[in-house]
């Protein structure tokens, strides 16, 4: 399934900057960065549970927030891209 993860991590102090890096890393390990703090993750339910838990443990719920959008398996119909930095299709042929 496709999950869109977006986050807002406060970077007022050094601990915040650290959280931001860690959140980004977890997202990167599971999906593709499509905009600065927006990731598209193609995960199965088990991977998703794990990823979600990791993210929740990293953030500080007083200052940061996470938003998950569940796009399901037929996500292609629900996504349209306009402009630069087109994302790669992770399910399509990967040839470089």
């Amino acid at each position: 399934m496709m999950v869109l993860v977006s986050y807002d991590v406060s970077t007022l102090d050094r601990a915040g900057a650290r959280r931001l890096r860690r959140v980004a890393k977890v997202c990167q390990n599971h999906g593709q960065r499509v905009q600065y703090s927006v990731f598209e993750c193609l995960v199965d339910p088990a991977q998703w549970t794990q990823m979600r838990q990791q993210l929740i443990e990293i953030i500080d719920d007083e200052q940061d927030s996470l938003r998950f959008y569940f796009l399901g398996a037929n996500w292609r119909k629900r996504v349209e891209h306009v402009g630069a930095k087109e994302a790669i299709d992770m399910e399509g042929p990967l040839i470089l």
Partner: protein
Amino acid sequence: MRKMLNTLYVTTQGAYLHKEGETVVVQVDKENKLRLPVITLSSIVCFGNVLCSPFLLGHCAENDVAVSFMTEYGRFLARVQGPVSGNVLLRREQYRRADCDRSSAELARMFVLGKVANARTILQRGLRDHGAKAPAEGLDQACRQLAHYSKRLLQEDDLESIRGVEGRTARDYFDQFDSLIVTRKQDFVFSGRNRRPPRDRVNCLLSFVYALLYHDTRSALETVGLDPAVGFLHRDRPGRLSLALDLMEEFRPFLADRLVLSLINLGQVKNKGFEVTASGAVRMDDETRKTVLVAYQKRKQEEIEHPFLQEKIPVGMLVFAQAQLLSRYLRSDLDAYPPFLWR
């Protein structure tokens, strides 16, 4: 059934692949071209001068990502394999049956049966789709010949005669293969199988696609815990993955041959996409290779109903399904191995 994961093909010469966190990063000229989470991949295939960092190789081995290295032209060179996994009891049973002539013959028969039936379907389709253009008599004759072979196979229980039937099928089938090529006849002539090196464009395409299929079959067998090197139809030989070759038989016509035919007939590959070296070997250029890879990946994503499992699965998962059925048969959960028969 597990999810079909993607395969990363790297054909850019001088590319460098390394691990960052749990992602694969492809670098070309010091610039990051692609970053992918390892969990989305089932294998990586590198063509020619492509470097992989040792950490990435280790990580792939741990996560069941098959990494294979090919020459620029698709000849298999090496693969990286993690610790042996899977069930030792299953593998022992596989060896026991491979040592026994009767059990080997029983399985070999099914593999060949799958191949003959699927080859016949190719010819029949050819007859139906462009019977008017092609020399229909030859095709029709060959179809009947193959039907005859598949009946005969059911009576054979001697390994040598099964191999004999397999050889004759291949000859009759490839004799007709040229008449299935209906466009660009002057550029794509097929006058029999040749390899190492392939000496015409059609053989060049066939060899390349077979190499891709070989890679996929091997991964499928390893995933279910079978030893790809110990076969039933093919004899053991160092460096050869006989069971992968066995399991490939039923897929050669359906996956590989048909792909090559449509690439040619639909004009997706062009005459000038190939080069002939001084020694007479024919090679494809980067562009053509990419076209073939894209077509192969696309084909694997199409869905088809598995005739035995009666379940809709992507074409790319068929080899996995067959490997699984094979292991079920070896565990005696199934009375016979059902080859993949394409309708």
